[in-house]
């Protein structure tokens, strides 16, 4: 599943199209596997980059004229796709448009480190983010480069699904270039365990309840949940709210900063439903000390100690590396079921539409930064991500999917997102950090039984009100 360094370019299609001219440079750098081959898009890319350089030189707010090309620092979130990103960086560094230094920041500290860095003189030129609320404060403070003009011209024009680009737009301006696959939250389950106890797939509420009762009776944890991290628990609240009252409930919370959105009865119903699940033991009895980030919760699913897990699509790649046999032959995946009496659509999706690179407005080398984010639109990067188990958000992804490993999971995920009437960004990312992080803590308190539903609602009202 990982990108193999010895294999030039990674993508099987890109090899015949490699440009011989790139070879000497590649050899000089003595990389195993030689030069990174470029597809046809290389030419288009060069033209596009030249255009963008012209644009950067013309705009008064841009870098310092001739200093537009140079070495830039790029912050990324360290995980199992970092090596793919490093490959695209290496390839970009050979194009002569500047040098990119990829700095991989450990996942759980990413937001804090970025915030600290952005307030210092050591700010990154380009940085990874989740769109939405994660870049809102920077956009409001005028700290981001408006990418709208670049999305109106090649190579970015039409390169990505519009809904994905929109998830990183603020006030009608585009601020982020998608740089990784989509990450909808999916209900994963162990098909072998379901077969063993003659259970239906948990795609209806009734089937899910039957599964919970059966697994509990056989000492299998129904749902693996990394409750110690808080955000995995938030996924439950997100889906329950959507299924009970549709996406408008959370849209109102995001849209009104006075905190009044939390008082919707749908939120209270969702909290009560979550409470019912906790009390009936759907998450086992030690989920409050189980963590996702140290791989404990995924290991419960992968090793058959738990039967299901509600988690972002990235967990599939995780299972593939830690429990390959389980992931390949026994892991099932489905939409979150409808909740009885709810008005939401069972096809709605929550999660992260994608991850993005945004450009710091105070970068000294805007030319290089723009050229780098535009470079991500090329198909060789898309193919490397696909080969690594990610479902990219490029316009042509669906046509490429069948050529890549685990097409069943890839196509399920792509269809799920494509057919979804709404794709709600994870709440803690959609809300500004000053509300999103306290929300995670509050969800942790609720799942640990420390606050009631009414207290949760009033706490969140106060938090959002005082943060605005």
């Amino acid at each position, binding site marked *: 599943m990982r990108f193999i360094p010895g294999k030039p370019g990674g993508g099987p299609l890109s090899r015949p199209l490699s440009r011989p001219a790139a070879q000497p440079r590649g050899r000089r750098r003595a990389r195993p596997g030689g030069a990174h081959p470029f597809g046809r898009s290389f030419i288009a890319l060069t033209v596009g980059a030249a255009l963008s350089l012209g644009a950067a030189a013309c705009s008064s707010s841009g870098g310092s004229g001739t200093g537009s090309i140079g070495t830039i620092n790029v912050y990324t979130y360290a995980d199992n796709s970092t090596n793919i990103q490093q490959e695209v960086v290496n390839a970009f560094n050979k194009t002569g448009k500047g040098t990119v230094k990829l700095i991989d920041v450990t996942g759980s500290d990413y*937001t*804090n480190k970025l*915030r*600290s860095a*952005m*307030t210092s003189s050591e700010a990154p030129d380009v940085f990874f983010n989740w769109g939405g609320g994660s870049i809102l*404060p*920077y956009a409001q*403070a005028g*700290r981001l480069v408006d990418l709208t003009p670049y999305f109106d011209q090649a190579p970015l024009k039409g390169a990505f699904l519009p809904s994905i680009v929109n998830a990183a737009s603020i006030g009608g301006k585009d601020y982020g270039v998608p740089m990784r696959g989509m990450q909808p939250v999916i209900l994963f389950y162990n098909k072998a365990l379901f077969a063993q106890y003659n259970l239906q797939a948990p795609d209806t509420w009734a089937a899910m309840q039957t599964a919970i009762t059966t697994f509990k009776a056989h000492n299998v944890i129904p749902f693996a949940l990394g*409750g*110690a991290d*808080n955000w995995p628990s938030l996924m439950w609240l997100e889906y329950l709210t959507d299924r009970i009252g549709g996406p408008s409930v959370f849209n109102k919370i995001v849209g009104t900063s006075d905190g009044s959105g939390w008082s919707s009865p749908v939120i209270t119903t969702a909290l009560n439903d979550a409470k019912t699940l906790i009390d009936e033991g759907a998450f*086992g*009895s*030690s*989920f*409050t*000390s*189980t963590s996702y980030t*140290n791989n*404990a919760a995924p*290991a*419960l699913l992968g090793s058959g*100690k738990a039967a299901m897990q509600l988690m972002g699509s990235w967990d599939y790649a995780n299972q593939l590396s830690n429990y390959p046999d389980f992931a390949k032959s026994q892991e099932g995946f489905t939409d979150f079921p409808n909740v009885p009496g709810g008005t939401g659509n069972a096809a709605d999706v929550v999660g992260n539409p994608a991850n993005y690179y945004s450009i710091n407005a105070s970068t000294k080398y805007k030319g290089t930064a723009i050229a780098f984010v535009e470079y991500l639109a090329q198909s060789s990067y898309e193919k490397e991500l696909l080969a690594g188990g990610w479902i990219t958000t490029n316009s042509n992804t669906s046509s490429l999917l069948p050529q890549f490993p685990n097409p069943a999971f890839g196509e399920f995920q792509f269809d799920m997102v494509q057919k979804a009437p709404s794709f709600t960004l994870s709440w803690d990312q959609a809300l500004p*950090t*000053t509300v999103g*992080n*306290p929300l995670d*803590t509050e969800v*942790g*308190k*609720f*799942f*640990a039984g*420390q*606050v009631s539903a009414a207290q949760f609602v009033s706490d969140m009202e106060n938090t959002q009100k*005082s*943060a605005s």
Partner: protein
Amino acid sequence: MTLAVPSRAAASRRPGAGASPSRVGRPRLAWALPGVLFFALFALVPMAYSVYLSFTGNWGGIGSPQIQGTSDWSRLFSDSNVRQATVLSVELTVLSWVFQTPIAMLLGVWAAAKHRNRAILSAIFFIPLVLSSTAITLLFKALLDPNFGLAKTLGPPIGFANGNILGTAHGALFALVFVGSWQWMPFHTLIYQGGARSIPEQFYQAAQIDGAGRVQQFRHITLPQLRHTITTSSVLMVIGSFTAFELIFLLTNGGPGNSTFTLSFTMYENAFSYFNFGYASALGTALVVICTIASILMVKFTGFGSMRSTREGD
């Protein structure tokens, strides 16, 4: 600049407090300059800046801070989370003291005797202190994992069904006390060892002649003679537990929910997770005031400030 007056300095010395020559002057202020500058630059200036930030409302670190009035301070005194964190910090401090002091004292006194096997054992007891506290914490976190750690086996006998120690409010607090104490007890043992070694042998010989047993010797000689050692160790322990951060950050991350949000952890979360530097600065300033008052009180009520010798039988 005060000129040192040797004669006055010598006159103020208590008789019998050493046979040093009278030409020992008080150091000039200039001697303290490097230390004072260092302290000013890295402690006083940031402290003053955080006092300033505590009046900047909910400043988030982007843009320049603006004075917004006392909203952070009024919130501080009405915030139920801060009240909970204060109670928790006090609980953590008291429990750590109660757990560590008797063990460290007994171990220290035991190790003070000059036997080779005791020297070897004290060297072994000392090991936790030289380990990285991050490593210790992560090790215990792995041990306390309810599904894959020892907690699954050890939890039920001590009342935590399914090994959910870190996932319950009380269990998480006990875990913090235990892990913190495990790490710092050797240090306090060392302090007590040093204290016990400085007690003159004659006291015990005299007591033996009077027929005092081991327990009586400990009660009537060792304990009173260790009074200042107890103060030193306690001040360090109280300040250390009250401001403990990395242990909480790594072992429980404040969880479950906010059960282990101590004052220092609440300050961190407000600053670097919720990005409300104004409120975090108010909390930080309050923490400095509380710790300073606590140190002064402890020093005052234990007679540590007067620096009288324990050897004069007073």
